[in-house]
C-alpha cells in the first residue's frame, strides 16, 4: 500500500481565469500607444518628451509613496501608475513646459490616489484630478499652450483650416496669431458669446461643422491636448480593449450616446441645431469615453449604474461646453460623476435572484 500523502488546503474555486489586474493595466497602456504615435506625428518630439516626463513622474511618485508608507513597492510596476501618467499627459496642451505634467502626475498619484489608500481606493480618477489641479494652478499654460498640428515640421507655415478655426482668425483684428492656435471647441465657445452677431456665429459654426472640419477631427489634424486629438487612433486602442475583453461597453456607449444626444439638443446656438458628430469627435470625448469614463475604480459596478454614470457624464459635458466657463467639459463631468459613484451603486443594487421587490 502506498504511503498517504498530505496536501495543502485552500478555499474553492481552485481554478481561475488568466486575467489579472496587471494584465488589464498593461492592456490599457498598449491601447493608448496609437494615440501616442498620433501625438508624435502632429505635435512632434516634444509630445513624446512630455509624455515620458509625466509617466516617469507618476511611477516615481508611486514608488516613493509606497516606500514611505512601508507598503510593497511592486505595486508601482503594476501598470496603473503608467496609465495615470499617460492619461495626465494626454490631457495637457502640447505647448507646456516639461515640469507641468511632472507636477500634475505627482499630484495625481500622491494626492488623488495614494492619500486615499492606493490602487482601488481612490474616489476620483487620479489623472483627471491631476489635470484639474493644473488648470486651477497654471490656468494660462493650461488654456493657451496650444500648438497647431504639423507646426513642428512645417515651421512658420500654419495650416489654419486644419485647426478648424483659429481663435486669432476670428478676432476683431482679423490677424492670425501663430502662437495661439486654438482648438475647435475654443472657436465654438466664442460663437456662443457673440450674441449680437448671429450671422458671424453661424458662419463660424458652419465652418466647424463642415465635412472638412469633421475629417480633421477624425484624423486628429486639429489643435488640442496631446493625446485627445486623433479619434481614429484612440478608436484603434478601444477596439484592442474590446477584443481583449477589458472594455465593458455600457459606460463608453452610454457616455458617447449621451454626448451625441445632448450635443444635438443644445450644442448649437439654439435648440435642436447642434452637430452631434462634431461634439463626439472634438475635444476629449473619445479619449474620455474610452479611457476615463471606463476607469474601473471610480465608476459604478452595477450594470444599471454604469449607464446612469455615462448618461450623466455626457449631459454634464454638454452643459459645460454650452454654458460653463470652459470650452471643454469632459474632464470635469467625469470628476463630478466619480463623486456620485457610491450613491449610484447604492441605488442601483440589483434585486438578487428570487428576491421580490418590497412594496412592489
Amino acid at each position, binding site marked *: *500500500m*502506498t504511503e*498517504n*500523502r*498530505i*496536501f*495543502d*488546503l*485552500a*478555499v*474553492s*474555486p*481552485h*481554478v*481561475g*481565469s488568466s*486575467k*489579472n*489586474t496587471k*494584465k*488589464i493595466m498593461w492592456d490599457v497602456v498598449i491601447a493608448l500607444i496609437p494615440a501616442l504615435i498620433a501625438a508624435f506625428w502632429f505635435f512632434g518630439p516634444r509630445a513624446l518628451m512630455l509624455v515620458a516626463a509625466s509617466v516617469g513622474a507618476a511611477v516615481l511618485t508611486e514608488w516613493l509613496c509606497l516606500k514611505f508608507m512601508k507598503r510593497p513597492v511592486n505595486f508601482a510596476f503594476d501598470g496603473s501608475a503608467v496609465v495615470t501618467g499617460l492619461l495626465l499627459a494626454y490631457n495637457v496642451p502640447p505647448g507646456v513646459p516639461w515640469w507641468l505634467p511632472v507636477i500634475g502626475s505627482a499630484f495625481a498619484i500622491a494626492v488623488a490616489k495614494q492619500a486615499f489608500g*492606493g*490602487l*482601488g*481606493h481612490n474616489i476620483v480618477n487620479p489623472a483627471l484630478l491631476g489635470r484639474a489641479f493644473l488648470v486651477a494652478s497654471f490656468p494660462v499654460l493650461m488654456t493657451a499652450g496650444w500648438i497647431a498640428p504639423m507646426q513642428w515640421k512645417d515651421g512658420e507655415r500654419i495650416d489654419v483650416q486644419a485647426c478648424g478655426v483659429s481663435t486669432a482668425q476670428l478676432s476683431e483684428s482679423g490677424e492670425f496669431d501663430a502662437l495661439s492656435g486654438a482648438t475647435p471647441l475654443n472657436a465654438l465657445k466664442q460663437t456662443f458669446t457673440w450674441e449680437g452677431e448671429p450671422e458671424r456665429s453661424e458662419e463660424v459654426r458652419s465652418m466647424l461643422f463642415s465635412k472638412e472640419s469633421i475629417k480633421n477631427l477624425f484624423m486628429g489634424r486639429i489643435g488640442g491636448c496631446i493625446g485627445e486629438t486623433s479619434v481614429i487612433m484612440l478608436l484603434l486602442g478601444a477596439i484592442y480593449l474590446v477584443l481583449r475583453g477589458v472594455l*465593458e461597453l455600457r459606460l463608453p456607449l452610454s457616455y458617447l450616446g449621451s454626448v451625441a444626444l445632448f450635443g444635438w439638443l443644445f450644442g448649437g446656438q439654439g435648440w435642436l441645431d447642434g452637430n452631434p458628430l462634431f461634439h463626439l469627435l472634438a475635444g476629449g470625448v473619445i479619449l474620455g469615453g474610452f479611457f476615463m469614463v471606463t476607469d*474601473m*475604480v*471610480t*465608476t*459604478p*459596478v*452595477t*450594470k444599471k449604474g*454604469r449607464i446612469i454614470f455615462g448618461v450623466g457624464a455626457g449631459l454634464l459635458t454638454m452643459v459645460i461646453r454650452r454654458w460653463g466657463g470652459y470650452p471643454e467639459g469632459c474632464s470635469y463631468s467625469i470628476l463630478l460623476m466619480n463623486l456620485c459613484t457610491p450613491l449610484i*451603486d447604492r441605488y442601483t*443594487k*440589483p*434585486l*438578487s*435572484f*428570487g*428576491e*421580490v421587490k418590497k412594496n412592489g
Partner: protein
Amino acid sequence: MSKVKSFAGGAHPSGNKDLSSGAAVVRLPAPEVVTVPLCQHLGAPSRPVVKPGDEVKRGSVIGEQNGFISLPTHSPVNGKVLRVENAPMPHMRSGPAVVIKTESEDGGEVYEPVPDWRNADISLIVNRIKEAGVCGMGGASFPTYVKLSPPEGVKIDTLIINGVECEPYLTADHRLMLERADDLITGMNILARVLGVTDPCIGIEVNKPDAIELLEKKGAKVIRLKVQYPQGAEKQLIDAAVGREVPAGGLPLNVGVVVQNVGTCVAVTEAVCKGMPCIRRITTVSGMGVNSPGNFNVCVGTPVSTLIDAAGGYKGDVRRLISGGPMMGMAMFTDAAPVTKGTSGILALVPAEVRDVVEGPCIRCGKCVDVCPLRLCASVIATASEYGKWEDAEKAGALNCMACGTCSYVCPAGRYLVHHIKRAQNEIRALARAREA
C-alpha cells in the same frame, strides 16, 4: 432540435473534460479495508449499530437513520468490523466512520426488489429509496426521499433530471448517461410516478452531444443547455429549463419543481428494481496530476489513494487534491480519506492548473457583478465581510450566495470572494442563533 437554453450570467471556465470523457467506467473491486463514513449525506450522521469484531454482510445496515433529514448507511462488503472511529473525510476534517476488513463482495443482505413499480404503492417506493440510503449523487448529497415527500398542499408539476455536469474536469455523469441510459430513464420514470409528474425532462449541456442523442433515441425528453458555468446549479437549471425563479431562501418545490441528478436516478433504479442499497458510485479521477485519468465505479469507503493508484498514480508536482470539481469542490489534506456517496470526482491538480495568487486590492471592475448567477454584488459583500460589517453583508444578500465560485474565478485582483462571503454567512448565522438564545 430544441432551442439551447441558459440562465443569465455565469462564466466559461476551460472544461478539461476530454482528459477523461472518453474513458469507459472501470469497476474497481472493493479494497482490503473500507472506511465507510456515517456522514455521507446532508443532515444528521447515521447512528452506528455495529461494534468492532461484528461480522457484516454486503448491504447490511451499519448505521441507522437518525432523524428526518438523515439516512441509513450500509456496508459495501462482506467482512468484519475493525473499528468505529473518527476518520479523515473528503468534505470535512474528520467524521464518524466504520472501518471494515473486506472478505468478499458478492451476495449479502440486499432488499427484495419492489415488484412492478408502475403499480406499486407510492409509499412503498419512497420507503425503499429511504431505506436504501439514496441521496443526491451530484455532490450536495441531500436525502432523496425528503425531496420526494413534499409538505401537505405543495403541488409538484415538473421533474428535471440534472445531467448538466457543468463543473470542469468531471465526466462521471456523462459516462453514466452513456453507459446506464436505460437505468437512468427507468429511475426518472419511477421518480416521476412518485411525484405525479407526467412529463419529466433531462437537462444536458450541449458539450455532451452523444449523451443527448442517445437519451433522445431512447425516448427521453432532453433540454439542451448552453455550456456555461454554473448551468447545473439547481436554481439556474430550473430558470433555464422552465423559466421559473426559485424564491430567495426558498426551495425548488416552492415553484413546483423537483430536481434530481442523473446518478440519483440510477441509484433509485438499483434500489427499487434490484433491491440494492446505495453502496457504489461512479467517480471521475482526473487532473494533470494523475497518469491516466478515468472514470471508476467504486465502493463507498474506498480510500482516495486507491482511486489514484487505479488512475496510474500521481504524476509530477501535485499542488492540490480536490474532492468534487475545481469550482466548488473541497481541497483535501490527505488521500487517506474515503469516497462517499457524493464524491463526483477526485482531482489531482498541478501548479499550472491551480490558481494560487496573492489577494490584491479590489479594482471595482464589476466583473463579479456581471457574472453572478444570483445577481449579487460579490465585491460589496466581500468588502463588508473583510471589515467585519456582518449586517451590511447580510443587507447586500450574503445569505443568498450559493458559493458557486464564478465571481472568484473571474476576479482579476485574485480576491477570495467566496471565502469572504462564506465567512460572512457563518457570522450572520451565528449572530442570529445568539439572538434567539
